[in-house]
C-alpha cells in the first residue's frame, strides 16, 4: 500500500514538475476552413466598372472604395469610361460581355439602354451589380439610393420653406429617363399630389450639366422672380442652379433642395455657404462598402448569376446648415483614396 502511494505521489510530482518546466500552452489553434475557398474565389477575378463618366466625386468615390476593399484579395479592376456618351457606354458593356469578367459594376445612364444587355450578361454568367442608377432589368444586386424617397424629402423641405410665400417651385431634372431623374420625379409628384396649392412653374431636364442648369434657372427666375423653391436632382449639376440664384441675388430667398454623394467639397461646403439649403446625401463610402461586400458574398457563394437577386437601398443623410459642420455628415475623396 505504501509503495502504491509512493508511486502515485512520485508520478504526480513528476508530472507537476514537468508541467511547470514546459511553457504554458492553452491549446492548439483551430484552422478556419472557410478562408481558403474565399481567397480562391476572389483571387485573380476581374471586376469591370462602367460608370456614366469618371472625374467626378460619385464615380471616383465608388471606384476608390471598391479598390480599397477588393484589391488586397487579388481582384483586378478594369474601367471603361464612356465620358457621358450613352452609345459609347452601350458599346463598352457589349464588348465586356464578350470578355466575360467575373463581375460588372454598372452605373446606368438611363433605365432603358443597358437593360437588355445586362440581361444578356447575366445569362452568360457575369454577376451584375447596379449602383445608384438602376435599369429596367433587376440584376443580381442593386446598391443605391431610394430616389422616390429622395424626391419626397426634397419636396417636403421645399414646401415647408415655401409656407406663406408665393408657392411657386421649379424642378431641375437630370437626364429625362435616368433612374435618378425619373424616379425622383415620381417622389416629387407624390408629395405635390398632397399639396395642390403648390404650382410647378418649370420642370425641365438639364442633362446633369451645370451650365444647362444655370441657363434654365436664369430663365425661370426672370419669368418668376418670386419663386420660392427649386428641387434639383443632383448637386453636381445644381452648382449651376445655385450660381444662377446667386446672380439674381435671391440666395436665401429661394430654397434649393438637391441630392448627391455627400462629398465634403461638393455638399457640406456648399450647404455651409448657403448655395444649397438641403442636400440629401446617399453617402458614397457606405455605398462602396456595400458594393464590395456584395461582390465578396456573390463571388464566394458560387451562386449562378441571375439565380439570386436582391436590393440594398442605402440610408440617406439629409445635410442642412445644422449638421453641415459635423465630421460624419460628409466624407473626403482624398481620405477614401488613401
Amino acid at each position, binding site marked *: 500500500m505504501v509503495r502504491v502511494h509512493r508511486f502515485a505521489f512520485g508520478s504526480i510530482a513528476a508530472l507537476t514538475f514537468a508541467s511547470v518546466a514546459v511553457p504554458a500552452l492553452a491549446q492548439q489553434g483551430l484552422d478556419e476552413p472557410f478562408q481558403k475557398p474565399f481567397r480562391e474565389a476572389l483571387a485573380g477575378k476581374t471586376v469591370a466598372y462602367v460608370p456614366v*463618366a*469618371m*472625374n467626378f466625386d460619385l464615380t471616383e468615390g465608388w471606384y476608390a472604395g471598391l479598390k480599397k476593399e477588393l484589391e488586397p484579395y487579388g481582384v483586378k479592376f*478594369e*474601367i*471603361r*469610361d*464612356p*465620358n*457621358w*456618351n*450613352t*452609345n*459609347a457606354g*452601350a*458599346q*463598352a458593356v*457589349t*464588348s465586356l*460581355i*464578350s*470578355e466575360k469578367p467575373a463581375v460588372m459594376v454598372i452605373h446606368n*445612364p*438611363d*433605365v*432603358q*439602354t443597358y*437593360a*437588355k444587355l445586362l440581361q444578356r450578361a447575366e445569362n452568360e454568367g457575369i454577376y451584375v451589380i447596379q449602383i445608384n442608377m438602376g435599369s*429596367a432589368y433587376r440584376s443580381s444586386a442593386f446598391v443605391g439610393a431610394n430616389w422616390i424617397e429622395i424626391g419626397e424629402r426634397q419636396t417636403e423641405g421645399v414646401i415647408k420653406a415655401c409656407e406663406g410665400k408665393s408657392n411657386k417651385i421649379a424642378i431641375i431634372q437630370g*437626364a*429625362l*429617363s435616368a433612374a435618378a431623374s*425619373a424616379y425622383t420625379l415620381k417622389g416629387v409628384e407624390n408629395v405635390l399630389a398632397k399639396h395642390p396649392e403648390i404650382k410647378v412653374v418649370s420642370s*425641365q*431636364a438639364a*442633362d446633369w450639366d451645370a451650365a444647362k442648369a444655370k441657363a434654365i434657372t436664369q430663365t425661370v427666375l426672370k419669368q418668376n422672380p418670386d419663386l420660392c423653391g427649386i428641387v434639383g436632382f443632383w448637386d453636381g449639376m445644381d452648382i449651376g442652379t445655385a450660381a444662377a440664384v446667386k446672380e439674381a441675388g435671391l440666395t436665401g430667398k429661394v430654397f434649393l433642395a438637391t441630392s448627391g454623394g455627400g462629398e465634403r467639397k461638393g455638399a457640406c461646403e456648399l450647404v455651409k455657404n448657403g448655395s444649397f439649403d438641403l442636400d440629401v446625401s446617399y453617402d458614397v463610402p457606405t455605398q462602396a462598402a456595400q458594393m464590395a461586400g456584395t461582390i465578396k458574398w456573390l463571388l464566394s457563394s458560387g451562386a449562378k448569376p441571375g439565380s439570386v437577386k436582391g436590393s440594398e437601398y442605402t440610408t440617406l443623410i439629409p445635410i442642412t446648415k445644422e449638421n453641415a459642420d459635423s465630421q460624419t455628415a460628409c466624407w473626403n475623396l482624398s481620405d477614401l483614396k488613401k
Partner: protein
Amino acid sequence: MRETLTRLRYRYWPDHLLGEILSKRWTETAIPVILLLIVGFALSQSLEHFLSPASLADTARQAGEIGFIGLGMGLVVIVGGIDLSVGSMFALTDFCALYLLDVLGWPVPAVIIATMVFGGLLGAVNGILIGYLRLRAFITTLITLIIYRSAFDLLIQRYSNAIASAFPDIPSWNFIGDGNVFGIPSVALVYIAVAIFGHIFLTRLRPGWHITAIGGSRRSAYNSGIPVRRTIALCYVASGVLTSVAGLFFAARLGTVGGDIGVGLEVIVLTATVLGGITLGGGKGSVVKSLVGVLVVLLITNGLTAMNARGGANRMALATILLAAAMIDIRWQKNRTRIISKVYVAPTYHALPPSPSTEIGKGGPFEQNDKLRDVSLIGLGMIEAPEDVILDRNDVLYAGSRHGDIIRFFPPNYERMEVFAHIGGQPLGMAFDRQDNLYVCIGGMGLYRIKPDDFLLRSDRPLRDGRVAGRWAGSTRQRPHHLLRHQDRRHAYRAARAQIPERRRSGQRWAVDIVRGDLRLFGQTLLVRRTEERSRRGRDGQPAGIS
C-alpha cells in the same frame, strides 16, 4: 555588295507591275485602307478578344448603323453639299420608331415603313431648301440640325418616360436589333446589300453618274441637261431615309431615347467620310471609301474605350489620327501621278567595265599623248595662220601667213625669221622640187613657184589681170585685189586648170577663168575683165612685170 544589291534591285524589282497597280482607280483609297489595316492590327495585338467572332459581330453591328449614315452623308458630299443634320435626324427617327412601337403600339412592319417615310420627309426639308431654293448647304443643314434637335428635346420631355417604361419583346423587333444570320448581324447584312446596290448605282447607273457630274461641276451638269435641282433634293431625301434606317436599327438594339442620342454624330460621320477619302468639294467618292472611313473611326473609338482610355483621350486620338491621315491623303492624291510616273520607269542594270586609265605613263589605250608637251615653239605671236610648213634642204623652215607672206625661220633655233616672199592671198600647201623651187598653192590665186634665188614670184600661167601678184617682187607694199573673194577658203582649189569650177553651198556653180579672168556662174558670164591693158600698165600705172 552594294553593286549586287543595286543589280538585284534593278533587275528583279517589279517596277512595271507596281506602276500598273498604282494606276488603277481603286488605289486612290490606298491610304485609308492601309490605315485601317494598321489600326486593326494594332488593336488585335493589344486587345485579346478583338478578333473573336462575338467582338467582330459587335463591331459589325455598330459599323452597320453608322455605315448607313455614312452612306447618306457620302451621297450628299459627292453631290457637292454637306448634311450636318444627320445627328438630329437620327435622334428624331429613333424617337419616331420607339414612339410608334411603344406608345401607339403599331406592328413592326408599319413602324419600319413609317419611320423611313418620316426620315425621308426630314431629308426632303433639306432637299427643298438646298436643291430647289438653292440655299447654301452648310448653313441650311446647320439650321435644320438645331430645329430637329429642339423638336427632339421637346418630344422626349413629354414621352421619354412612357417609352422608357416599355419593354417590347416582339421577336421580329428583337431580330432587327440583336439578330444574327450565321453569325453575321442583321444590320451588317442589310448594310452589305445596300452598299452593293449603292456602289452599282454610283458607278454604273445613270442617276449615279448624274450625281457625280453635279458634284464635279454644277454649271456644266446643268448645261448638259441633267436635272440638277431634282437630283440634289433627292440626294438629301436619300440621306434622310438612310439615317432613318440607322435610327431603326439603333432603336431595335437599345430601345432608348436618351437626351444625348445623336449628339456629335454628324462630326463622327464627317470624320469618317473625310478619312475615307471623299473630298468635301464634291464629285469624287465611292461606297468603299465611306465604309473604310466608318470602320477606321469605329475601331479607333471602340478600341480606345476597350483599352481603358479615359474619355478625353478617345477624342484626342481620333482627332490626331484624322489630322495625320488627312495630311498624308492629300499628299497622296496630289502626288499620285508623279509617284506613278517615277515607279513606272523601269531601267535595267548594266554593269560597265572599269574605265581605262588616261593617266600618262600607264600605257592604256586612252593614254594622254603628251609627246608635244616639251616642244619648243616657233614663231609664237610672230606669224598668223600658217596653213602649211615645210623644211628645205638646209633645214630652213617655211610657212605661209594670212597676210600673203611666205615666212621662213632659220635653224638652229628657228628664232630668226624673215619674209621670204610676199605673194598675197592665203598660202596653203607648199612643196619643194629637186631644184629647190618652192611651189605654193595660194587660196584665191593659184599655184605659184618661187625660185630660190631670185624671189620673183612666178606662176605657171601668165595671169593677165590685175590680180596677178607677180608684179611685186619681194615687196609687200601693194596687195592684190581679189576679184573673186573667197569667203570660204575651205573649198579645194584646183589650180592647174584654166577654169576653176566650184560648187557653192547654195548649189550655184561658179567658174573662174584664170586665163581670161572671167567669173562665170553656171553658163552665165557674170563678170568679164578686159584686163589686157590694165595688166600691161598695172593698177597704178607702173609697167607690168609679168612674164
